[in-house]
């Protein structure tokens, strides 16, 4: 007797699905951000602003300012926009803050869940593609004004180098050769990187270049927050190298800010 219920043999998907988002959609659909919603209209939600990613000698570095704005108000002066996604990659977000942070949480879980179910880490390419699908899933919300545009990057263990991916609101995905920025202050930050970035930067130089680009963005874009030593607010940076993803310690960022401020001081 053959059983029509045997998975895979009756046209149904074969094998375990390692996706956490798919699992959640089935088990707890109410916990997911809704796929379509009423027009947001005048509802003003906090927005995260400028983030950037750049390659350097050991791998890849991501940085973001700390400001979230809601219209012309500052909603949060200490928001974090750059996170390790797993042990070998990082994600930075710009756009509707609530939606963006939720996508980061889901993406981190997606990678962890995959790793536990299959016993293997996803390739960097696989992670980048998965994120593209998740951003595409957010398209209905983006059409209502809740746009989320991330940068994703990490250390490709197979190629032995850092890589950076840039996304648009529709889930379009492009790989960047050197550096990329996104968010409201993305343009001034990119112009700054254009002048200062060069191949093979050391870690210290890379941190300085990233911090300087964010400071340039803060000068030209009111939604981007500059470093504020008085209140102890500094950009948040994550470095990914062959030895893994780690938050750059605040002392290092503070030192880089001090150098840049000193260079810009007028006599």
């Amino acid at each position, binding site marked *: 007797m053959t059983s029509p219920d045997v998975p895979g043999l009756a046209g149904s998907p074969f094998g375990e699905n390692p996706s*956490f988002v798919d*699992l*959640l959609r089935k*088990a707890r659909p109410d916990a997911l951000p809704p796929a379509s919603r009423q027009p947001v209209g005048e509802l003003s939600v906090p927005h995260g602003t400028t983030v950037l990613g750049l390659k350097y000698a050991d791998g890849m570095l991501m940085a973001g300012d700390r400001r979230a704005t809601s219209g012309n108000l500052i909603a949060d002066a200490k928001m974090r926009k750059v996170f390790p996604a797993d042990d070998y990659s990082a994600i930075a977000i710009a756009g509707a803050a609530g939606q963006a942070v939720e996508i980061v949480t889901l993406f981190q*879980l997606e990678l962890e*869940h995959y790793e*536990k*179910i299959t*016993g293997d880490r996803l390739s960097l390419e696989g992670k980048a593609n998965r994120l593209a699908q998740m951003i595409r899933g957010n398209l209905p919300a983006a059409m209502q004004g809740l746009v989320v545009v991330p940068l994703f990057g990490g250390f490709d263990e197979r190629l032995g180098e850092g890589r950076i991916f840039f996304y648009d609101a529709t889930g379009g995905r492009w790989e960047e050769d050197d550096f990329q920025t996104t968010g409201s202050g993305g343009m001034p930050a990119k112009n700054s990187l254009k002048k200062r970035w060069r191949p093979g930067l050391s870690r210290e130089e890379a941190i300085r270049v990233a911090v300087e680009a964010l400071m340039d963005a803060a000068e030209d874009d009111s939604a981007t927050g500059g470093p504020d030593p008085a209140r102890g607010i500094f950009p948040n940076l994550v470095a990914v190298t062959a030895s893994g993803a780690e938050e750059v310690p605040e002392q290092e960022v503070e030192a880089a800010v001090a150098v840049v401020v000193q260079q810009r001081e007028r006599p």
Partner: protein
Amino acid sequence: MSFMPYVAPEQLMKDRSDYAHKGIARGRSVIGCEYREGLLFIAENPSATLHKISEIYDRIAFAGVGKYSEFEDLRIAGVRLADIRGYSYGREDVKARDLANAYSQSLSMIFTQQMKPYEVEILVGEVDGGAVGTALYHVLFDGSVTDEHGYIAIGGHAEDLMEELRQRYQEGWDLTTAVKTCVQVLGAPESRTIEPVAIEAGVLDRTRTHRRKFRRLDDDEIARILSG
């Protein structure tokens, strides 16, 4: 028309239980024990990729003996339960006790209602679970659960191993001593030495700075410990 002949429930349960016991005794054993920094799971496993010992969540690990496909099913169900719970509430709300209860219910359901019981026994271990501290649950094929302290051996020659462990286990031993002793214990019933490459081991190390406390010991590390 077919009909089922009458079988006394006692007989039915006994037959199923014997069947499961036989399946589990055919395989190799797993030992779970406490050591100074947490919990060690160690097994003889010729395969480097088909694991008996795995991570479930930040502070929780899983080990299974018996039929691979069946305990693999249970492992995946455990990862799903843990990840959904951690996402819906908070990461620290995922507890080994809840997992052990869920396993117990599923296995007991399968034991009484399915054609054949699962031929598995599993361990669910947890470190730093708040007030509970270290926990080690042993779930059997019929859904019975026990809360173990110190050490436990399941599958294969489990009884011989337990006897051996009773004599040699010491509270608070370090990782090296724990691994060395457990490897000797695993080989003891048949008086043989197990090659380092055939050892699978994983720890829940509460001193690990990473949020995820589970760590697999790779072949090099095991060989180093055993030769040291």
